[in-house]
Each structure stands twice: as C-alpha cells, then as structure tokens.
C-alpha cells in the first residue's frame, strides 16, 4: 500500500531508516514528503573512524565493478519497485516532464555497464593509480603516487535523477565513503538506489560506505555536527551561490570544498553556415537539440547562440529565418529528449511577452503556448533577461566579429557549442582564457561521453580522491649525514 505522502528514505551504511518521520517540502505548491528526522540520525550519518575505510581495500577494483554491474541489472525500472515508486513521486518534484523522466530512469542501468565504468575511471584517474602505487623516478628518488578514497559529503543537484546514481558510482570506484544529502527537487531516487543496494548486499563494503538522507540545506544545528574534519574530508557541492557560500562557513583546515559552480552554456555559429538552405537547416537542428534536450534544465543546455552573420539588415533577415527553422526543429524532436515544459517560468513568460512589444529590436518566434520560444535580437545584444532563459527559450544574437562573442564567455560558462569546425581552434583557445570549460560540436552537447567523461573543467573525479605520495631514494643517493657542506642541497 502506498503511504499518503511519499517517503524520502534515509539509507545509512546498509540500514534503511523509515522511523521518526517528519514533513518536508510543500513550498510554492510543491508536494510535501516525509523523511526521518535528520537530528535523530545525525550521529549515524558520518563514518565513525577513518580506520573503517580498511574494508574497501580488501576488495579489488574488479570486485567493485562486479558489484556495480549487478546493481545496474537490479536498477531495471520494470523489475524494481523502489525505483518505480521513486519515479512516480519524482514526476511531482522534478523540473522536467514524464517522458523525459521515464527516459532517464529507463537509461539508468546503462550507467553501470562495466566497460563504461572502466573507461570512465581510466580516463579520469587511471585504474593503476587506484589499485596500486604508480612509481616513477625523479631527481634521484622513486616517487609513487596512489589515489585513495576520501570521506566525502555530496550536496547533489536535483535537476536530473541520474546525479545521485552518478555520485554513488564515483564514490564506489574511488573507494570513497559517500554521504549524499539529497535535494528537495529529487528526494526519492537516490534512496531507491541505496535500498536496492541493501537488498542486494547489505554487508558489502560499497553498501556500508554509503549514507543517503534528506535534511533541509542550511540546517545549521545538524550541519555543524556533520561538517567536521573528524567526519569528512571533502564536501562536493553542486548548486547556486547561496548553497556553496553557505557551505564555505564549514570549510577549515582538514575539509576541502569541491564547488561544482552553477554554469550556463552558449554557442557560436559562423555566418558562413547561413549561406544555403541546407546548411541552415542543419544548424537549426543542431541548435534545437542543444537547447531542448532535457527541457533546458541542465547547465550544459544552450541558452544563447551568437551568429557571426553581421548585424546589418541582411544578417538580421537570415537570422530570423534561422530562428524559425530552429523553432520548427525543436518541436519535431522526440519526446524522450524534450517535451513542452512542465511549467513555463512565469517570470520568463512576462519577459518574453514584454519583448514582443519591442519589435524594433527583437523578433519573438513562438512562446504563446508556453512551449518554448526563439528570441532573435536585431542588435549584437543578448536580451536583458538572458539569465532567466530556460524552458526551451533561446536567444539568437547577430554579431559582426568573433571577438564580440568571446566577450560574453565568462566565469559562468560551461559548454560552448561550435559550428562549423573551422572555428574550433580560435574559439576554444580564446574561450578558455575567458572562462569557457567545455567546447563541443554544436548539436552534441548531450551526445558525447556524458558524465563519465571529465564532466567539465572541474574534473570532480580527480578531485574526489586523495593523491598520496610515497618517496624512496634511488640506489646511490648520498645521505645528508655523509655529505660535505658543499654537497648538501636542500632544494624545494
């Protein structure tokens, strides 16, 4: 029987906790849900001692892969009641719509594919570094390096249900101890995965080194207990300035912050791409795909496209045509990728409707039914409300030179889509200097290595491990106590 209000289960080190439930959520029309009173379980959330990390080193990387592969099989939504329930409840909390969520859940087992994980780890860290000391001679010493698992707390984002799964994966393969604070926009999925792990192997070290719970971000009484250097070594925080800023007050020697800053993405298109109808159609398909996938909730989703078509009348006319083609292409995309947004941001709707009145300076294509819109600027200016662009709303901006575009790549930029390829060299080099982190072919922002790659310039996997050094003198290295004054070199 389903409870009348859904539960965000706490799953702590192999134990499922569903007692002392209290109510959360319910703001601004959101659903309310129940979760164990976090203050009652606070003491169990952190690992009692770093000594308890030993068990992760009694199993091999291959053992971990076997575990994850089996978990992946059990995460088949058709056979997993926990996930089914989580998906059902997540329709209400998630920012995206049912078909997109269904697809996320459908694809979840593929994340646990052995080959894929092996590739992810080898690319980001290098499996030998996790399994052994990797030795190299340097300056008369043999220096060995090994990547050790850390005790980490993750404040994950909730704009896609895969982020909890990804965090569990990353924790397992790095032999980390992982605490996940789930967000109110995805309070169910991670707990469902963790419950599956408990059913599968309650005493396995990977199960034992995972704690999943909900508490209200900013609950100082709770957080000041957990966020202590004797409990955790790293805090990995997704999300806005407020959540990251708020975490920084717990940062002290012994706790490192990995800040996955909120980002946004833009694209750059060379004017030559608008020369003929066929190419223009291709560009429209590419833009639409990068804008609309996942309904533009992810940081990698394109929100602005700069086109070097010139800001003269001829350029603007071409851009309007591209805008219409982009809008049409967006509506044609399959619903596993994108749908009419769940709820079009009313603030954005107001802004788009206001923009319609300024038809000297902007052309608005679509948007009357909250389905998304293409906003074509007639000057080299992005719309004033560019920070609000979401729910399948993209701004096409005409520019005269590439330099103008690079000016808008800044510290908030994640992905930059490029078309045609001939622009890549200049865009990625200059863009990197300005703050861009990831450069992709236009249309492939979500169709690349995915989050198994380095994600973005932050490279979270490399930073989740502790890099430990071991040094031995090479044979023949003269000890200081046998050196003359002249021979001694204490060099940093």
């Amino acid at each position, binding site marked *: 029987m389903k409870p009348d209000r859904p539960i965000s289960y706490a799953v702590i080190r192999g134990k499922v906790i569903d007692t002392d439930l209290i109510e959360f959520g319910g703001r601004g029309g959101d659903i309310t849900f129940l979760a164990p009173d976090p203050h009652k379980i606070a003491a169990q959330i952190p690992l009692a001692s770093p000594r308890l990390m030993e068990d992760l080193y009694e199993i091999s990387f291959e053992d971990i892969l076997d575990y994850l592969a089996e978990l992946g099989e059990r995460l088949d939504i058709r056979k997993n009641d926990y996930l089914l329930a989580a998906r059902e409840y997540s329709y209400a909390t998630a920012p995206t719509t049912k078909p997109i969520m269904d697809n996320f859940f459908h694809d979840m087992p593929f994340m646990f594919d052995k080959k894929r994980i092996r590739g992810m780890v080898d690319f980001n860290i290098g499996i030998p570094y996790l399994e052994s000391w990797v030795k190299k001679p340097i300056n008369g010493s043999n220096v060995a390096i090994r990547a050790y698992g850390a005790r980490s707390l993750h404040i994950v984002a*909730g704009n896609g249900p895969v982020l909890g799964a990804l965090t569990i994966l990353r924790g397992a393969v790095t032999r980390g101890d992982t605490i996940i604070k789930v967000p*109110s*926009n995805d309070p169910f999925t991670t707990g469902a995965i963790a419950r599956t792990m408990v059913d599968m192997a309650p005493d396995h070290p990977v199960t034992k080194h995972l704690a999943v719970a909900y508490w209200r971000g900013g609950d100082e009484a709770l957080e000041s207990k957990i966020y202590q250097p004797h409990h955790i070594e790293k805090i990995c925080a997704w999300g806005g300035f407020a959540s990251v800023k708020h975490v920084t007050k717990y940062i002290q020697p012994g706790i490192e912050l990995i800040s996955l800053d909120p*980002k946004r993405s833009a694209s750059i298109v060379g004017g030559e791409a608008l020369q003929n109808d066929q190419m223009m159609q291709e560009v429209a398909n590419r833009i639409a795909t990068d804008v609309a996938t996942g309904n533009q909730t992810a940081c990698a989703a394109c929100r602005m496209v700069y086109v070097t078509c010139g800001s003269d009348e001829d350029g603007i006319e071409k851009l309007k045509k591209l805008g219409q083609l982009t809008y049409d292409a967006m509506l044609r995309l399959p619903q596993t990728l994108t749908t009419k947004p769940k709820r079009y941001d009313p603030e954005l709707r107001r802004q788009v409707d206001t923009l319609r009145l300024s038809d*000297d300076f902007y052309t608005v294509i679509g948007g009357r039914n909250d389905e998304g819109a293409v906003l074509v600027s007639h000057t080299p200016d992005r719309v004033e409300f560019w*920070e609000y662009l979401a729910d399948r709303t993209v701004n096409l901006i005409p520019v005269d030179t590439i330099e103008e575009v690079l000016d808008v790549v800044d*510290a908030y930029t994640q992905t930059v889509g490029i078309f045609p390829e001939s622009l890549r060299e200049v865009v990625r080099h200059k863009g990197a200097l300005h703050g861009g982190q990831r450069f992709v072919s236009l249309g492939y922002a979500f169709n690349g290595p995915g989050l198994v790659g380095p994600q973005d310039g932050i490279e979270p996997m490399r930073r989740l491990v502790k890099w430990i050094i071991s040094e031995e003198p090479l044979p023949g290295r003269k000890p200081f106590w046998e050196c003359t004054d002249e021979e001694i070199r204490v060099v940093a």
Partner: protein
Amino acid sequence: MALSIESRDTSTERQAEGWMNDPYEYFGYRNTLIHSLPRAEVEAVQLAAMNLRLEERRPQIQMLEKLADAQGIGRVSSLDAMAPLLMPHDVYKSYPVSLLAKQKFDRLNTWLSRLTRHDPTGVDVSGCDSIDSWLSKLRSETLLDVATSSGSSGTCSFFPKSKRDYRLSMMGLRVQLAQKFGEEPKPGDIEDKIHAIIPLYRDGHASTGAFAKYAGEIFAKGDPDYWHTAFNFKISSDLMWLAARLRAAAAKGDASKVDVPASLLARREEWERTQKDMPAQQLEFVNRMIKRLQGRRVFVMSTSNLLYAAAKRGLEEGLSGVFAPDSVFMGGGGAKGVPLPGDLEDVVCKFFNTKRMISSYGMTEMNSFSVLCDHDRYHVLPWVTVFLLDLDTGLPLPRRATQTGRAAFFDMTQDSTWGGLITGDLVTVNWDQQCECGRTSVALEKKINRVSEIQGGDDKISCAATPQAQAEAMDFLTGLGG
C-alpha cells in the same frame, strides 16, 4: 466590485478628470479627506479614469497601443479587466544595451518615444556624449525629465517621467507628510516654505537627485535659503551606470570587461573617490543643519543609516529636540545587505524629538507615494488602483480577504507614461479590514519583499546558473567593496 459602465456615467467621469488632472488641487490639498473616501466611490472613479486614460493614451503611446491591440482590449468593465494592460517595469530597460555603450542617443530617443506621449525624437541629440548630456538636453527642450536607475543586473533603466509627474509626486509627499491625518490642514502646511534637508545631491537624472531638485520647488518654494543639500551639484547618471557595470563585470569574473564608453571608464577613479568621501561629508552636513536650523520646521529626506549616525552622535554630545515639533523625518531603506541598527527608531526619535520616523513606499515609475501610518501600513492614494497578481499565472487575485501577490498599480495621474505598472515587489493587502488608523484607503502591509528573493531558498539545487545566484554573488562583491 465589478461595476458595469454600459451607459457612461458623466458625473463620475467628470470626477475622474478632476483626479487625473491634479488630485491635490481637486481635494483642496486636504490629506484627511483624501484618505477618507468611501471605497465604492473610489473604485467607480478609478474605473472611469481607466477608460478615459485608455482612450486618450492609446494613440499617444505606441507600446500601449501594441499591448492593447494584442490583447484586443478597447474598454474595461472592471478594475481587474485592466490587468492585461499593465506593463512590467522591465519594459523601461528593454533597449539593447549596445546602444548606450555606443552612445546612439538618437536610437534611444526612438525607443523612448514609444513609451511616452511627449515625443523626444524631434530633439537633436547628435552632439550628446553621455547619458547626462542626453537627458539634460531632453529636459531643456521637452516636457520630459527622464529618470534613470541602475538595478542589480547593471542595466540602466530610463523612465520617461515628465516634469509635471515629478511635481505631482513631490506635492503628494508634502500633502501627506506635512498634515496630520484626522485634522484639517493648517495654512502653513500648504503655503509656507519648509526647510528641505536632503543629505544627497542637489539635482540629477537619477531619481534621488531629481527628487532633491523638485523638493526645492515644492517644499522650499524655490527659495535657496530653504533648500539644503549635502552636495551642491548633480549626481551623474553616467557614473552610477559605470559603477553598476563594474560590479556586474566583477561578478562575472573579469572586471576589465566593462561595456561602457572609454571616456566614461576613465572617470572610474573620480567615482571611487567621491564614494569614499561621501559618508563623512554627509554627516558633517547633517550636523551643520542641526546647528543652523534649530527650532525650525524641517523636512528631512535621508537614508535611515545617516539619520541614525547623526542622531547617535548628537545624543552623545548631549543634544536633542533640535527642530520644531511639526518637522518630518523620512528615512529610506539603504543598500541591500546593510542591516539597519536595532535601536534605529529609538535613537532617531529621541534625538530629533519626533514621534516616529516616517517611511513611504513608492518608486520612480509612479507618481504616488504611500505613507506608512501609525499602524504600520502603507496607505495608497485613492487615484492609484492596486492589483495583487498571482505569482504563477499573473492573474489578479480576488479583492477580498487577505492576499499576497506581485504588486501592480494603475496610477491615473501619470502625465507622460501609461500609468499601468507591474512591479517586482511582493505585497500583502487585507481587503476586508479597514485600518485602525482611520484611513479608508487601501493599505499595504509593512513587510514588502522582492519577488525574486522569495523564489530562492527552497533547497532545490540545480547545476544551471540562475539569476538569483548571480545577484547573490554580486551582493557579496558589493559588500566586500564596502
């Protein structure tokens, strides 16, 4: 209540014309009367005024015409039916910012002309090389006195107010502040020169500067001996814009990417220097006024923090009650993130020998200020229709019980612009209860938030940057800058 106006009520229309034209004159400048009108009568006049204004302004203001055409609205039969014709405040910054950076003031004139009935496009602005020079030219050659402001995004808004709008606005303050509610005005309340003390600039296109200028006209009746400002020059809208753009650029990680003309960027040090010296000069000015105008009736328009600093120092020196008892002290919010001292009201009232520190709710985009009553509610003048809009749907919430929504207003006295405005403020009104202070006018609860503030903080975490995140980052930087 929805009031049908199938047959036009000419006496109500005549009343509406009186209110629209100069409501203070119409009511004999009597504050008590203005706030004691029966609600039903007020709403009938408001509805008549809306239709008169719509008919008149539609061919005069292009943006309104487009909006009304798109909505297919020619007349309205209820107050709420006007909601689709209210314009978001952002429309006053909807120009492409490159026009400003490239100093295309002729094109900005064209943009502005669509928002006002006082067309500025006939003015030759080819020689203008700054915002100040552009707006000065418009001020001297048209009926306009365009008001600028820079929000947290760093975009400068241009609100095409007219000089008449400013005068009405200032008269509204004088009528509401100089008279005590419940009493008839004393002759001096309306006729006398009152000392206006404003510890800011004497003039400017930014509304803080312009308000000082018009306070000089309305309170001091133009007599320089009654008109006191800390800085006897104009605040520069260019420098304010520069400051906003510098902050915006820093928040994005590259303080050198400031899209303002080079000539303006060269004035950066000038701005930073004046900002640094300002607080000490303002305090010195207030102390000078305290000595010079002892026992006189004064009207002080200041930031709360400055009043507090002056009062605290005065009390420490053993002074108090320096001005005449019918003086008025109006404090303002001050910068976001700068907390007001807990004993603010106590210290200010004790030193200035006044019962309370007055505050008012208003904005550049409206003529009418709402003054806070003794029961902590802002009372809206009867010629302003209040709308509370649902945050999700944008539709008006019912005019009954207690409602909280996005505040929108229709100010029928607006001379230059349309008068229908959607704000970024979240406001609460109890429609059914008359305020204990005795005023019958619509009352806004004291606690007013920004809509954008309440939309954050719900523990929803996303990897995509939001405007809130950036605004917070900017507040943080601004705080660091002092």
